[in-house]
């Protein structure tokens, strides 16, 4: 081979170092080392309620509070419990894995629902007049129904409103905030 067009070894090494540093530098600058999975919050810490305007928004926060409360009692994350309650099969796997019987799960889910009522009341989304009977009803609710409420908080809160609807006028006369806190028309 002729010497023409030959590269010096040092140039090749320097070029390799520059190319490697440029690539790694560009990727790091673009956030290549910044990945952090969305952090899972401690369910025993209070979760802030934003200002819910609609029944769907209230139901969302009610569900989250209920899951937090139940997860806190069971010593698992809200996310783990949410997946466990999604289907009967998932629930069975969860209770087996964590050695939790149905009674313990029922107590935890009820406690979660009570925390959701407390949080809703504190955030002004649920009138105290509704909160009190709700608490009494939830204290003895069977496990399947309790899970159903978490899974369909919107339907549950809608039913509560429907059931108490006729009394709405009277309640509003008795309480300045009335049912307005439920975000319903």
């Amino acid at each position, binding site marked *: *081979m002729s010497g023409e*067009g*030959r*590269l*010096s*070894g*040092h140039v*090749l*090494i320097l*070029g*390799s*170092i520059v*190319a*490697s*540093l440029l*690539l*790694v530098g560009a*990727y*790091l600058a*673009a*956030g*290549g*080392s910044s*990945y952090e*999975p*969305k*952090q*899972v*919050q401690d369910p025993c810490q209070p979760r802030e309620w934003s200002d819910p305007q609609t029944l*769907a*928004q209230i*139901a*969302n926060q009610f*569900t*989250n509070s209920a*899951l937090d409360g139940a997860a806190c009692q069971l010593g698992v*994350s*809200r*996310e*783990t419990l*949410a*997946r466990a309650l*999604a*289907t009967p*099969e*998932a629930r069975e*796997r969860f209770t087996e894995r964590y050695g939790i019987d149905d009674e313990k799960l029922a107590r935890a889910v009820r406690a979660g629902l009570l925390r959701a009522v407390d949080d809703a009341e504190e955030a002004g989304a649920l009138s105290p007049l509704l909160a009190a009977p709700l608490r009494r009803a939830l204290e003895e609710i069977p496990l399947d129904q309790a899970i159903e409420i978490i*899974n*369909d*908080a*919107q*339907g549950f809160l809608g039913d509560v409103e429907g059931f108490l609807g006729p009394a709405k006028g009277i309640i509003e006369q008795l309480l300045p905030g009335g049912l307005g806190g439920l975000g319903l028309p």
Partner: protein
Amino acid sequence: METSVRPRVAALALAVGLVLADSSIVVLALPEIYRELDTSVSGVTWVLVSFNLVIALAAVPAALVARRVGPGRAAAVGLAIFAGAGLACGLADELSTLIVARCLQALGGALAVTAALELLPATVGSERRATAVWASAGATGAALGPAIGGFLTELVSWQSVFLLQVPIALAAAVPILAVAKHEMATRVIERELRRTGRPHLWANLALAMVSAAIAAALFLLVLLLIEGWRLSPIEAALVVSVMPLAAIIGSRLTNLVPDSRSRAAAGAILVSGGLAGLAFLPKATIALTLPPQILVGIGLALVLSALTETALGGRAPQAIHGGWTIASRHAGVVLGLLVLTPIFTADIEQQRREAIDAGTAVILDSSVNPLLKIDVAEKVSERLEEEQGKVPTIEPAFEPKPTDPVERSEVEQLQGELQDQLDRGATHAFSTSFILAALLGLIALFPIALSRRVDL
């Protein structure tokens, strides 16, 4: 070259390409084998490890055997064993059977490849030309292996990757049989073995380190693409084809820089740089894997040819020293896989759990209608159950989409966020392994610095 010699050269090149492709051809079939034989990531890794380990251990003894019994006979017998074992691999319905058959394939392969290096000088007329034919056949096989494996796996089955090797190996053996018959008839077997020089320690050590890094690059990238980002084998094959294409460009640089130590050092730096790039991918996007692959591809072309040249330069007989380079390269592959597999297996599991929790948090915190949210959560939970131990495919959990435009947009946004969490989690799971592989490449710089080519 005489016309009568051409089929024999082609057959020898085919044999070398076929055997050395076998180290990488199976990489894209591994996820499919993993699913079909119901094994673990660590278990399926042994399909690769067993082959490379046996080749590493058998290469030098095989070269000695080839010189003792005659390279023609050794190559023909080696190819026959390789073909028979390939058939057994294709028919295997258990991981243990597959691994045993892979070991036999490696034994036959080691015999065929080292015997080919012994036969080539007499066939092509010079030792230098023989080394060139041998090296390019091996590089072509190794480069084309993943792509061919990916296409066969998706279009036919993982078994076809092995079954197709049977007729090819037998076809390669036919012209070599004539050499074997000639050896038998003329008894031109070199029974007085020449005293062989010591292998080039530093060049072979560097080859092992760099091969560990390169094997890790290919294996980890394929797993990331198929298991992490859920690409099909063909798609993954197309993506990883960038590496051999870049290697072709890199081989042109080989001719421009005469100093083999500089080429080896530059190659090792590029391989490490590319691996570090793969460790710090800012997004789970195929395009972002291309620049690192280009660096790895150019780097491997530079470093492998330079180190092989250094290891063989001035040393005789070529078959034995070729055997040492094969042993080093395959031992490096084994080292890379054995060191990195437990690390990334543990990382994948941890990242999977974190990504799933993060994904669930994204669903729970979203503003999507609660009933839709619960429906999605249920379906995602089902997907997790179906694809246990893997990153789930979540698209089906979001079907059918709501008809209301506002709800639809919210659901699509939620799907995007969830997918992003899972993809970034899967990508991040490979980071530590890619960094360690990059370090292996950098460690190779020490033996490279100490290596010096000896031309006698």
